[in-house]
């Protein structure tokens, strides 16, 4: 059987799709392709067969840097005790309207 080295495989790409004008691009999954052009064409075939998108972004997976879930405690700690950033923190009289 004809097996190739992992190094020779087409790289992995992450796919992001804007479902309609005015919305963010959203991660939908990944695929393999030799280059960015092929990645966009493959993304069209794999992820937009039913008009799910008006715009596609692809980025090689190796270029994505992600936070580590084990660090979540310390990473998000600075925001943890600042409830006064939310409007519901403020106790105001009921007769106050339009606020």
């Amino acid at each position, binding site marked *: *059987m004809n097996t*190739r080295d*992992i190094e020779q495989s*087409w790289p992995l790409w992450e796919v992001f799709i804007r479902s309609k004008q005015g919305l963010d691009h959203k991660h939908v*999954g990944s695929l393999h392709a030799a280059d960015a052009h092929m990645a966009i064409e493959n993304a069209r075939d794999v*992820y937009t*067969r039913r008009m799910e998108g008006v715009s596609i972004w692809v980025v090689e997976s190796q270029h994505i840097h*992600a936070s580590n*879930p*084990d660090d979540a405690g310390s990473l998000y700690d600075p925001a943890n005790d600042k409830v006064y950033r939310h409007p519901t923190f403020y106790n105001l009289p009921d007769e106050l309207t339009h606020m």
Partner: protein
Amino acid sequence: MANLTNEEVFQDKVDQEIRIEPKDWMPEAYRQTLIRQISQHAHSEIIGMLPEGNWITRAPSLKRKAILLAKVQDEAGHGLYLYSAAETLGITRDQMYEQLHSGQAKYSSIFNYPTLTWADVGAIGWLVDGAAIMNQVPLCRNSYGPYARAMVRVCKEESFHQRQGFEILLTLSRGTEAQRNMAQDAINRWWWPSIMMFGPGDEASPHTAQSMRWKIKRFTNDELRQKFVDICAEQVKILGFTLPDEELKWNDASGHYDFGAIDWTEFNNVIRGNGPCNKQRLDARRKAWNDGAWVREAAMAHTEKRKNRMAAAEAAA
């Protein structure tokens, strides 16, 4: 919290319906079970293109041809969603292909049966895709994020597959005597393999309890099978056909249909590689992979060439 083991933290998240994501800690057995289950599912989608692909050139009208082509293309897409979900667990695409092509990995044994007539395409849509949907809908809520998201996508698209199959059978049911016989014959051949798709009975399914604790599975094989039988026993009446089971009978006490014993010897035989089309299916996959080798290499060579040219142009500028 400090005294909890990794495993306890993990199980607590699962119990609370918090999804597990690729970089989260997970038990090795959970990872391996998922890799096996997701890759088998992906292989089934890819192999599943073959029996129906057989009828694309011979579909009875341009409309049916376009529909079948779209359905087979969806199956390719479903395979790709699932392979990409499995890859997040640390296995490569090529390793999965290797496991499929070497015969080490399994795929749904239903695809080792031949598609003898056009009515088989209808029966596959109604019964095989119907059983698949019954299995897949609960998987949209499974505990592993990438797998659950892939399944949501799959389920959204799968519904048309089942409806087009039923419509083919409905059309045949209103046709000539020969067409009606052809449809009934297809149902007779696909019924038992379809209800075997839910896997062995609960008493013979030792991993069910663990998979349910991990929320990789939400219902037992027998629960899903019963639900499927109940639905099909009603739907077949609309077609005016019958299901090939003399013991199929409504049971007032249980509120379900009783049905006959399943021939697990046949199921195990097909799984072991002795089904009518096992060899043909794997040969077709290996041939496609080997014949495509030069295309994969050429595409990489082309990419390299363009990268080098761009680098040279930048250096010159």
